[in-house]
């Protein structure tokens, strides 16, 4: 729904020809997820699907049908990369098994995304995003003490594993460029959280630096401050790691008396022993100012604090507008719509929007006739027998 689709979107945005294969009739689950304009469900108008599948061609195929198996083989032999996120037992049933596919195409790079991975004692266990985030540990960072840990919002785990997956695909692709062959990549959503995101915590715990997490506003450990405090009209996220930054904070606040207090010179101790008192001083100063005023002050003084934005602040941000981060695109059903855009800008090669997300089966004729060489009569037959 999200993970495989986002991984291939990252490749499509950089120019790859991505053919999205969907189930005949129903299509990708994200077509049914929404959000929908006016909250009216329409599989051709789901915001999540439209975002994740721009720049792709779309075909329908039932790979488990008799005719479908041969078609899958044809598609695989023409592809550089195959991405799928079916649970390991299901992927096998569908014929998405690397050793078999590699016989068809020895240079094939195949990425398999799953909650727990294709090996290990939990490989056949059932899992959704919240379960992968639990095993990966990230839920223990989120929420309030004494209350339940929280699942990351916005299906972040699916996006996260997609980015890690696209990165692994690029590693495999460059490996192949340098003389290697194709290979299979097994990537678990839980592992993606447990390593890059929560992995540093293992040594910290083992050496007694940080044993507990999830303290509400404040992040424990490290130098003061690392917290969120309210201002006049919202919340401010505050983290400063270096002495230089701390000095700039004091300067911005008009060099207050307490800043020279002998207790407040070692910021590790300040965080451990005096954080409440210091939050009181800074909090009182913040309370008198709005997010807008503070943003300007933080920027002028080079203080690494930021306002806690809403999604509206994010979408309407003038800095992102100047960088043309959001992109606009016309879609048959949804009309002109704004989407999150480029995560990076290349000086010589494009990141570009070429086409909106496909309607269900929109490119069947192009792909089946143009790429695989079927004639229109065969296409009708495939459609009638529900293979496509």
């Amino acid at each position, binding site marked *: 729904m999200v993970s495989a689709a986002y991984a291939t979107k990252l490749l499509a945005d950089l120019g790859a020809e991505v053919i999205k294969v969907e189930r005949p009739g129903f299509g990708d689950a994200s077509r049914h997820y929404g*959000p929908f304009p006016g909250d009216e469900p329409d599989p051709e108008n789901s915001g999540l699907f439209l975002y994740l599948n721009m720049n792709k061609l779309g075909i329908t195929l039932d790979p488990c049908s008799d005719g479908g198996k041969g078609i899958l083989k044809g598609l695989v032999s023409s592809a550089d990369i195959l991405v799928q996120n079916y649970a390991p037992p299901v992927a096998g049933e569908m014929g998405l098994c690397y050793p078999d596919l590699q016989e068809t195409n020895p240079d094939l790079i195949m990425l398999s995304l799953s909650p727990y991975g294709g090996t290990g*004692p939990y490989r056949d266990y059932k899992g*959704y995003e919240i379960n992968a985030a639990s095993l990966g540990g990230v839920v223990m960072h989120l*929420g309030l003490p004494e209350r339940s840990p929280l699942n990351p919002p916005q299906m972040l785990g699916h996006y996260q594993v997609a980015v890690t997956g696209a990165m692994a695909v690029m590693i495999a692709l460059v490996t192949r460029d*340098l003389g290697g062959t194709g290979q299979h990549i097994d990537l678990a959503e839980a592992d993606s959280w447990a390593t890059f995101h929560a992995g540093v915590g*293992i040594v910290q715990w083992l050496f007694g630096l940080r044993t507990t997490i999830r303290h509400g506003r404040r992040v424990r450990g490290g130098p003061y401050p690392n917290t969120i405090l309210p201002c006049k009209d919202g*919340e401010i996220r505050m983290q400063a790691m270096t002495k230089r930054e701390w000095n700039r904070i004091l300067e911005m606040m008009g060099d207050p008396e307490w800043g020279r207090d002998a207790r407040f010179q070692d910021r590790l101790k300040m965080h451990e022993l005096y954080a409440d008192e210091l939050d009181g001083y800074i909090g009182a100063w913040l309370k008198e100012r709005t997010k807008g005023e503070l943003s300007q002050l933080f920027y002028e003084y080079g203080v690494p604090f930021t306002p806690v934005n809403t999604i509206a602040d994010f*979408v309407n941000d003038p800095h992102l507008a100047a960088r043309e981060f959001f992109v606009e695109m016309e879609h048959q059903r949804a009309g002109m719509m704004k989407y999150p855009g480029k995560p990076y*800008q290349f000086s010589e090669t494009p990141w570009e929007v070429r086409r909106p997300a496909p309607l269900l089966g929109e490119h069947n004729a192009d792909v089946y006739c143009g790429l695989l060489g079927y004639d229109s009569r065969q296409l009708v037959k495939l459609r009638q027998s529900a293979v496509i």
Partner: protein
Amino acid sequence: MQPLPFERIRVLDFGWVWAGAVLGHVLADMGAEVIKVESRRRLDPARQGRPIIGDTPDPEQNPLYHNVNRGKMCVTVDISHAEGRRVVEQLASISDIVVENMSPHALAAAGLDYQNLRRVNPQVIMVSCPLAGQYGPRNELRGYGNAAGALVGLDSIGADPDGDEFCGFNHVQGDPSSSQYGVIAALAAFHHRLRTGEGQYIDLSMWEAVGTMMGVATMDYVMNGRIAAPQGNRHAFMAPHGIYPCQGDDMWVSIAVSTQEEWEAFRSALDSPSWAWEERFSDGYQRALHRRELDHHVAQWTSGMDAYEVMETLQRAGVAAMPCLNQEGRYFNPHLQARAAYVDVEHPVLGTEPLYGIPYKLSGTPGRIRRHAPIMGEHNDYVFGELLGLSAEDSRYLTEQKVLY
């Protein structure tokens, strides 16, 4: 040992703190020769912090640094010196990829931005990945990984909807995510260079990288003007879907039930308690409507049990359940162990330490953690002497002048 796929790639690494450093370690794990440039004049914040052994500050004891700089070499150069700049130019001339995440004008001030480096190496690929990118009205914005989450709305959406206090999204999303986007970009540029010989510059912003992950909330705002609010563990259509208390101190288990088939399996696994047969829990729509009452029943069932016992009971029935693991829990978890999520690496100061492993399992070229994170200046002799051909005398002189410092 099997040769690694990227042994022909050399990376010049100005990445510091977290995001910038991850880029280099990912390439190092695959065999790239990554030369990290640091200076005692301005110590990497990831080398600072409370020492683990003794009381005096020691740049060799920070676990963050050890994780995100494994497999690299380290040289010390003060780039504010003209001679330091020349040394870096020489290094850039023999490198394939340059990585940095300083504020936008820092390298330009030292004459080491892309425009200058491409003069000594037209094929070089350079990735810059600070918070706000290279241009735009807020391009000098300072902030750490948490700031990216605040800017894109993660804090406003990730808080606890039923708590007494605002807690935000206190997981650092910015660094570990944006750095992986950086690797994608660097390798895409490298792939392009192999075919065309053309180098290029990549302007990556941590803010934007995390912003691309806000799909549903952005689209709902664009389509319906709705401003996303915290949902906690509520799911759009799954119920039960949540994190429930278990036996022990701060022990929890997550459970998610999607289809009717899963609900029936869940009910049987619990030995069919009478509440599970009530009309208000009979189908997905009803369960979502009465999720609070449902959660209450589920929590009552889990609270007497060990989290692993809940997992085994439910998974046996085909229902998704998983313990919520803190550091200790993850370190001892048999599945994460089987998948080498944490790998013991010998460090000369701290001894054996479990660094995070490589999550993507490449069947042909899996890569490996080649060595511990470097000691400050550990590879000055090799890099300046062998790679750049600097004489011992010149090297000593530049060290005394605090250029190689």
